[in-house]
C-alpha cells in the first residue's frame, strides 16, 4: 500500500467545485454536500474528494491574509474597547 497522494492536476481541475459544494464551512442558507455526495456528482472517488477539500480549505488565501487577519483583529478590538469603556486613548492609530 503506497501513501495516498493527490495528483496536483486533479486538484487544480476540481478544487473550486469541491469547495463550493462542500460542507466544510457552515452556511446559513443551505446545507453543503458530504464528500461522498460530491464524489457521486463529479464522478470521483470519495477519498479523492476528501483530499481535494481538505487541501482547498487551506488554499483559499495566501499567507498575507493571515497578517491581514491579525491587523483586523487588533484594530477592531481596540476600537471596541475604546468605545465601550469610553476611553478614546485605547484606540489604535
Amino acid at each position, binding site marked *: 500500500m503506497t501513501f495516498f497522494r493527490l495528483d496536483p492536476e486533479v486538484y487544480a481541475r476540481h478544487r473550486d467545485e469541491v*469547495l463550493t459544494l*462542500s*460542507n*466544510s*464551512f*457552515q*452556511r*446559513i*442558507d443551505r*446545507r*453543503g*454536500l*458530504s*464528500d*461522498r*455526495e460530491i464524489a457521486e456528482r463529479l464522478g470521483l472517488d470519495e477519498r479523492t474528494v*476528501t483530499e481535494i*477539500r*481538505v487541501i482547498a*480549505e*487551506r488554499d*483559499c*488565501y*495566501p*499567507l498575507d*491574509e*493571515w497578517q*491581514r*487577519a*491579525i491587523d*483586523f*483583529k*487588533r484594530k*477592531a*478590538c*481596540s476600537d*471596541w*474597547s475604546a468605545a*465601550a*469603556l469610553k476611553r478614546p486613548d*485605547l484606540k489604535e492609530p
Partner: protein
Amino acid sequence: MTELPSDATKRLKAVALKAGASVVGVADAAAFDAYAPAKHRPVDLLPGARTVVVVGGAQPRAGDWVATSPWLLSTMGTTERIQGVGRRIAQAIESELGYYALFVPPGTAAGDAPFMSLMLAAELAGLGARSLAGPVLNREHGFMYWSAVVTTAPLDVDGPETEAACPAPSCREMWERERSTPCLRVCPLEAGGCLEGRLEDGRAVRTAYDAGRCSTRVHTHWVGGFQKVLEETLNEPDRERRKMLVYGDFMTRTLWAITYSSTNIAQCFECMRACPAAHGLKEMR
C-alpha cells in the same frame, strides 16, 4: 436496555444545570436529516440514536469582551468547560438510565468539517438561532459554547426556537438609520471582511459570506496558519530567513495555540464583540 423513567429528561436537565450548563435542550435525532449531510448526522455517529442532548454555557465574561487585546478572548474563549458538562451528561445517561451515550467530539472529522454541527444541534434543541454573523445566539445568554451527546434514550424533545435573538432591537434601529448593523460594519465583505446581509421585515438575511477569509480570522494562529508558514519556510532557501519564520511571533503563538487545539478552537470574536444580542454590555465599575 432499561425502561426510561417518565422524569428522566427533567432529571438529566437538572444534572446538566448543576454541572455548570447555562442552558440545556434535547433535539430529535431524526430532525438532523433535513439539514446535515450523510456521515454528519446523529445516526451516523451512533446507530440507533434517538435524541441529542445539547448543553450551552461558558460564555466570555464582561471583562473579556472589553479587553484591549484580541489575543485575550482567543486564549480564554474555550469549549473546554462546556465539554466537561457534556461528558458528565454522557456518563449519567449510561450509568443512570442504561442507554448508549456518545459525546460528540469537538474537533473535526476531516479538514475543517466537524463530526456533527454543534450549532445545528443547538438550533434543533431550541437553544438558539443563527445570527446574521453566523454563531447561534441564545435569547437570554447570547453567545455561548456548545457540547452535545447523542443517545439511544427516547428523551422528551424540545422544538427549535421560533423567535431569534438576532437582530437585536438596537440593530433594527441602526438598520433603519444607516442600512448597516454592528456585525456588518465591523467585518464588511465589500471592504475585505467576511459578512454581507440585510434586515428584511425585521429578520436577518445573509446574502454573502467569505468562509475562506473567516477561517483565516477564526483560525489565525492555528492549524491553517501553521501549515501556511511551514510551506513558506520550506520554500525559503536562505537559512537565516527560515529561522526568522520558524522562531517568529506568528509561529510561536501558533504552536502555543495548537497545543490546546482540542479546546481552544476559535480566535476571532469581532462580529460577536460588536453584537448587542451576543452579550449585554452591562455598566461595570
